């Protein structure tokens, strides 16, 4: 039985027919509506590659049953840049080389956006490292990731001040 799932994804409300109740939010994004920026690394909440924001909070979309999130607002990596203008976190990841193969990167970036919004790590590198430890990077770009998060935090603080 097909059920209709309403999600607001990157600002656009969508009614998505769900043909299979087993579908995770990750598989809905990737296989049913073609938002493949969000990646599947482990499918079990152990790597963070599938991180998206649900109602502003970072979660592993691989362990989110899609039907359970009816009505939610989802932000994926595709929803961060405004046209060609990158989000400060995206720009900082490029500048600090916070990735190599790029596969974990969408999850890292969504996690970093949330970490900065959570406001608990601030500019403390050790808190940034701990706060980003739910996102594995097998290329091990961790030094660049930490630097990127700190860089973006500073940039966004300046924006807020301006």
């Amino acid at each position, binding site marked *: 039985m097909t059920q209709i799932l309403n999600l607001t994804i990157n600002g656009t409300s969508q009614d998505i027919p769900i043909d*299979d109740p*087993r579908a995770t939010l990750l598989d809905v994004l990737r296989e049913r509506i073609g938002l493949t920026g969000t990646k599947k690394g482990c499918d079990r*909440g152990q790597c963070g590659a599938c*991180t998206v924001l649900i109602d502003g909070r970072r979660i592993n979309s691989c362990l*989110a*049953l899609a*039907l359970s999130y009816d009505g939610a607002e989802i932000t994926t990596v595709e929803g961060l840049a405004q046209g060609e203008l990158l989000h400060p976190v995206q720009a900082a990841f490029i500048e600090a080389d916070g990735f190599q193969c790029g596969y974990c990167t969408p999850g890292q970036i969504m996690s970093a956006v949330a970490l900065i919004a959570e406001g608990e790590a601030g500019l403390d590198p*050790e808190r940034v*490292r701990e706060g980003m*430890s739910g996102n594995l990077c097998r290329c091990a770009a961790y030094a660049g990731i930490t630097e990127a998060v700190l860089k973006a935090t500073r940039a966004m603080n300046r924006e807020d001040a301006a």
Partner: protein
Amino acid sequence: MNLFEYTRAETLDAAMSAATEDGAILAGGTNLLDLMKIGVVNPTRLIDITRLPLHDIEEHDGGLRIGAMVRNADLARHPVILSRFPAVAEALLSGASAQLRNAASTGGNIMQQTRCSYFQDPLSPCNRREPGSGCAAIGGETRNHAVLGWTEACIATHPSDLCVALAAYDAVVEITGPDGLREVPMESFHPLPDANGTGPAPLQSGEIITHIRLPDSGGMARNARYVKLRERTSFAFAIVSAAAALEIQDGRIVQARLALGGVAARPWRARTAEKALADQSPTEEAFARAADLALEGAAPSGDNRAKITLARRIAIRALTRAAAGTPDRLPALPASVFEGDCNG
């Protein structure tokens, strides 16, 4: 994952009537969906309780009453948790990842299943998964298995960090079911295995955890810590862990709380050790004696004798840290044996 019927419960009654043998309660989903993906749990009906009004944290007689749907991250940030139950916050923040804590619920954390790799492998005999089938862990890879309260029927450990802290604080689990309300102390909520099996299920058919109650922590608010030994610095289950809380007046321990994690099928409340600490000075010697008592009766369930030593030592560490006082702000690496040691 097998096909199932998905229902969203609009009322607690509806959820209870659905929570029978072939049904499973879906809250945060971080453990249930994982177990369904690996074929360990195969419900034919899923009852989503995420919209039930169980999302509040209320102050209650100097303590807290926490809705079962309160997400781990929200609980860890709650001002009363931080000020009066800091070991709960530290335990929560040392567990899993920020993403998982945003989804995982309080009730779900309590209901999470063991990480025993044989439980997670449907091809292995496991009394916990399939009563009567045996225990493949015995004689297998047992580094992460129990050293307290185990039997030949099961040597699994409970993996929760939160439950260890809750047990130390005398938390009570509020359960609603067809026969009304009942309450079970956190420390005995998870059954220990007996000679034949893993013990009675913690919840009966139709029952649902609705709240966790934390009684007033009294004079222990600022002398409480959680410490967790891990194989990597973050995002790992405990090898062993301990929650400790102390009420210290005039250099004497008025009351002590100590619970161990990673050692048994339940968070292991060390009541004998606590009693022995009463009216003692908070010294390393007193903590060492208490730790000996906490591990009384411990025995390796396989190639894991070192865990007994580690558990004893982490108990001492937690007590020592608790005696030193809870820091105003939790350390950057919550519960880590490394705190403030690397500032690169």
